[in-house]
């Protein structure tokens, strides 16, 4: 179910798209944060290219517009205390199709492809597609998140 908490998401939920313009600030901050200094990010056709792993930020953005009771970006910025069990990112899987350049209008779409219990733990599977507004395919992203971390002994 959309519009609530991340823990309300269900298999088959189709996200409302998230859109934004990729700025040099965003790319700079992300690249600095992961100490990525590959020269080519500055020189591809004279344009700045984002590190492909930045698709993880796209996941945060699409959740922000779809889980309105748990706006993670807003909460993180405002240091809102988190009262729920922590979520654990379990799997990252990106397939790159073309670079995302500074100035590109990015459109993130996707859905929840599965939600299931495994060994007493609640998992959520995401499938996102990232395109430019004029239709160029940037990447496909799949993600697996453990919704509520508790030690294994407590899940029995």
């Amino acid at each position, binding site marked *: 179910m959309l519009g609530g908490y991340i823990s309300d998401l269900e298999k088959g939920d189709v996200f409302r798209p998230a859109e934004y313009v990729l700025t040099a600030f*965003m790319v700079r901050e992300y690249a600095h944060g992961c100490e990525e200094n590959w020269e080519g990010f500055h020189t*591809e056709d004279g344009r700045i290219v984002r590190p492909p*792993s*930045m698709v993880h930020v796209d996941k945060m953005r699409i959740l922000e517009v779809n889980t309105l009771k748990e706006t993670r*970006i807003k909460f993180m910025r405002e240091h809102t205390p988190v009262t729920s069990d922590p979520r654990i*990112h379990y799997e990252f899987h990106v397939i*790159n199709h073309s670079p995302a350049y500074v100035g590109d209008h990015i459109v993130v779409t996707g859905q929840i492809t599965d939600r299931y219990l495994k060994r007493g733990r609640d998992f959520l599977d995401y499938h996102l597609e990232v395109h430019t507004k004029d239709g160029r395919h940037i990447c496909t992203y799949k993600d697996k998140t453990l919704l509520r971390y508790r*030690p294994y002994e407590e899940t029995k």
Partner: protein
Amino acid sequence: MKKASELQVGDELEGFTKWVSPERVEWYDSAMLSAACGELSQVGVNIHTDEAYAKEHGLPSANADGMISTNWCQTMLMKHFGMDFVKSGELRNKYIKPVPIHSALVVKGKVTGVEQTPLGKLISMAVWCENDQGVKMVDGDAKVTVTS
């Protein structure tokens, strides 16, 4: 370092070791938040930045965001494949063990397959991270089609 087009099955990629300091973890989390909202932002308390909070929620200690290890795996791939990775590469990581703060993380890769395709040479690799005891903390694989 071999050129990407010359890689063969069994070749090891040029990995590296980084120290997972609390500063690095906070640095990444704040940068990710800043990139997400388009403005300079500072991350607060979470399982990555606060030891007490992490233990309160059943974790043995504060640990690194899984994306930090993925970013470092990506750095290794960028070094070898450059824009070919950005244009056609694939990277998958599974965060199989929490990476504690104040520990070393060793990024590694090894070529597992080489296949000529109409688009170029498809290089398949195992990509992973170990701690300094050789215990695998992050598992994964990658593929890149080398065009030059």
